[in-house]
């Protein structure tokens, strides 16, 4: 049962910011609501006011500008999944959207909500970290842009301060052509990741370049497996080296045991998924 909570539909970002400013910690932003409403029902969150930003067109646009793709925080997963630029230039992101939750949830859930909720298994943090994404944070004092890695402070913790909202995600359009996203769930529809990974790389003269390997649900927050990246960066690529990188990624994981799987299994799956991701990203890079 949902608790009683006051509700205001924001007329614009400025209005939303003013409401956040006025109501302080008692206000929460409502976008898709697919995480927030569950939290309310479970009494994990007890805001006094919901500020609905789900109808704001200014947050729901995807536009190319200054060599970057700006994806509004209010873009739904379904819209992200269907965007031609995302599909063409950021296939790892499109793939994450493809396997996100289920049809109904994808129609409501937003990219910004997934990032701001910052769950250890948040699907979009994984490809976006691998794509060197930044986020723009709106505040009454003006916007600021921070790298996604710095936005993400820990499990369910972000750099969003009081009175701020996530405006958009900024993706440099010079992303490597080799991209892969791998997710292991316990079923095909509506699954939460047991582990996931994104691998992004170029291949230059048979060597890895601009390699990013990011792991999800393998630690308190998604993170780059740098030792694994270094094993491929500037190095001649081979099956043996891919397996070594995958093993290094597994070694960097700090998985937990829960109802979805043991730590031992998760670590082994990191290795399996990263290996699969490297092979797929490498093949895509070579094809391009």
């Amino acid at each position, binding site marked *: 049962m949902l608790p009683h909570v006051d509700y205001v539909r924001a007329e614009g970002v400025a209005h939303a910011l003013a409401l956040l400013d006025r109501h302080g910690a008692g206000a929460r932003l409502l976008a898709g609501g697919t995480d927030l409403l569950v939290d309310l029902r479970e009494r994990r969150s007890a805001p006094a006011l919901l500020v609905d930003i789900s109808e704001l067109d200014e947050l729901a646009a995807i536009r190319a500008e200054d060599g970057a793709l700006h994806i509004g925080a209010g873009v739904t997963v379904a819209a992200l999944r269907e965007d031609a630029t995302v599909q063409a230039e950021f296939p790892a992101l499109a793939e994450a959207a493809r396997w996100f939750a*289920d049809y109904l949830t994808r129609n409501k859930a937003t990219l910004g909500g997934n990032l701001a909720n910052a769950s250890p298994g948040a699907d979009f943090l994984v490809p976006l970290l691998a794509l060197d994404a930044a986020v723009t944070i709106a505040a009454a004092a003006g916007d600021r842009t921070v790298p996604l890695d710095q936005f993400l402070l820990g499990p369910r913790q972000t750099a969003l301060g009081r009175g701020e909202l996530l405006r958009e995600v900024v993706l440099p359009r010079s992303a490597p052509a080799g991209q892969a996203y791998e997710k*292991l769930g*316990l079923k095909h529809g509506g699954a939460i990741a047991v582990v996931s990974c994104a691998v992004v790389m170029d291949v230059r003269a048979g060597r890895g370049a601009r390699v990013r390997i990011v792991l999800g649900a393998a630690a308190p927050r998604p993170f780059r497996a740098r030792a694994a990246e270094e094993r491929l960066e500037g190095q001649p690529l081979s099956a043996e080296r891919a397996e070594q990188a995958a093993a290094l990624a597994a070694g960097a994981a700090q998985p937990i045991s829960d*109802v979805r799987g043991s730590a031992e299994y998760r670590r*082994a*799956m990191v290795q399996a998924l990263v290996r699969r991701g490297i092979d797929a990203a490498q093949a895509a890079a070579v094809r391009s």
Partner: protein
Amino acid sequence: MKDLTASEFAMVGTRAPRRDARDKIHGITRYADDFSLGGMLYAKVVRSTRASARLVRVDTSKAAALPGVRCIMTAADVPHNVLFTDVPGQTTVVGALRARTQVLAADRVRYFGEPIALIAADTEEIAEQARGLVEIEYEDLPGVFDPVEAMHPEAPQLEETGNVISRWRVRQGDVDAGFAAADVIVEHTYQTPFIDHAFIEPEIGVGWLDEDGVITIRVATQVIEHFRDVANVLGLPHSKVRLIAPFIGGGFGGKEDVTVEVYIGLLVWKTGRPVRLLYTREESIITPTKRHPFRMRYKHGVRKDGTITAIEAEFISDAGAYAYLSPLVLLYAMVHSSGPYRCANVKVDGTAVLTNNTPTSAFRGFGSAQPAFGYESQMDACARAISMDPLAFRERNYVCKGESLPCGQPVDHAVLLTETARRAWEALGPSCAAPPGKRLGRGIASTLTSFGRIVWLHDWSAAWVELQMDGTIMVRIGVPDLGGGQASSLVQITAEIFRIPMSSITIHIGDSSLTPLAGTTTATRQLYMSGSAVHKAGMELRAGLLEQASSVLGVPAAALTMDGGAVVQVDGAKRISFQELAASCSRSGRERYRHSVFHAPAGKVMDFETGQGRVFPDLTFGSQAVEVEVDEATGAVRVTKLATCYDVGRVINRNSVEGQMEGGAAMGLGYALTEEDILEQGVPRTPNLMTYLIPTALDVPDITTIVLESGEGSGPWGARGIGEPAMVPTAPAIANAVYDAVGVRLTQLPLTPERVWRAMRDAAP
């Protein structure tokens, strides 16, 4: 009386649209929760947060002081604080214990979530708030969470009579001699999990006091006969409680035992006001009942020529904290233990044991699903052990019509298992190459499931069929419709008998006071029992109306038939409409209605020492074949093809039969791959649909349904039950396919990626 024959059928076997379909699709159907009354109170149940504890203090004063709280009840307020599930034919102390559950915990809680108090308040919010104000002081008691440990004499005891609540046995021939005659012995121990019914509609009801002081409860139940249980708890005459079952959003056995109706009854009785109680999804998952986990040791002896020389099995069933129907579920498991196979030497022992886990009871397949995972895995392993094709090995051993199962259960009707297995297998089509990193495998399972209640329980169902003055037909019968189309099939049977459109028939169902009692919608019995009751009443009324028409028209009854809402002369011009016929009946004093009771054939109680005898009226047989794709790196299993083939005796509604077969396979797929209620020290760890994983449309492949009609079965026109049988073969078929794909035998359900991965890793050289 001459029955209609298959060649004459106009309605039976067609895809007639279900009469409830339109309203359900349009969202018009009023389920139990789509109903409210002025002044209605909202109820909540206060539950134990311990799995095993003594209640030191239950203080409701703060909760009672909350404005808007109208009533709080604890065990002391319940007139007769006990619910019985009668378990006839028990062989052990359970007979004296009976299956006994406290309505509200009096001084001890035995499982996490056990009800302790009831609250009724002006709003749901207030009731919820009040629930948090009830102060409960516990003294933890040692608990036992594993049925094998619970069998140990030193284990904490849930009842003074001990934790073992039921033992059954089957004895035929000499298993030692059988194993001595075997070339190969195959032995494995199998385990199945707690699972949840996960119906769309959780437990829900609304009750009120009517003008005559009758406590009336409109409730999602499979059993309107629970009016007696509610009355017994309240100490009222049975006629002072009435249960109404509207259309139900799924039962699967989870609404077979008493759920919310007794709490609603108590609060209505106490307050005199209407009361609504709806469980949340979390409550639905953590409260009784679940499917029994079984631990099953199976030992098969086989000769190289494919003869099964001996079967030995030992079942241990986790009954949870209260018996409920556990002894009966175990008895069913005994009868089904050998599968649909003949074997001269069989020895099976079963034990049901109390633990401090969530109580277990009825679940689609009622004791036939767990053994099927064991015996069909064994059949596959035996075939491979003697290098025989798994289909050929089964065909050699299928029981035949006229024979008996090893427990003495006679097989009266056609057994088309060879055809079901071949047709299902062929439906998988040609094999393709596996994608990189994946392996494909195929598996099959053939199973049997009884339908109809145990023959010594003297089952019956009553129906009222009436010709209205306007020439339409009305049926009244106390059937709860769970969503399987129970009511619609009865209308279709009626339409066949009177040769009128289904739209000219009205049916009233599911009212314990106003519709003739038809028994429970459980045991896959409604088409069999209530179909037969409607058939009987309908055919008797038909004969009477033909006689009346005969006297009016001056034509022998044998030369008359029914067509288009009239009695017509065969090859002749004379006719009388149903409307005229109804008036004629009234004038001449002939009854325009029939109230008929169908009694299932009764039988003697089985022999408890040997387990020999007839237990069930009839059996349904079928096979499923699947293809799976196993991920070599992750162990993830995807079902790529699934074919299901049953002999249903006679199709009444083809859509409904196929719907049951598809739904059963989807449910079986969940049992095989994802569904498990995980309990840690009795505490549910998967209390929502994010962690308790039921298949979605993306997880279920297109299912090929193949329906055979032998024309032989105990239901109307030879129909057999299909509701429960439809889910039974899926899990073993999938496990056998996984073996075929990767060469490891998984013995524990569900086959999670991690379990498959571990098995592959452990088997690697």
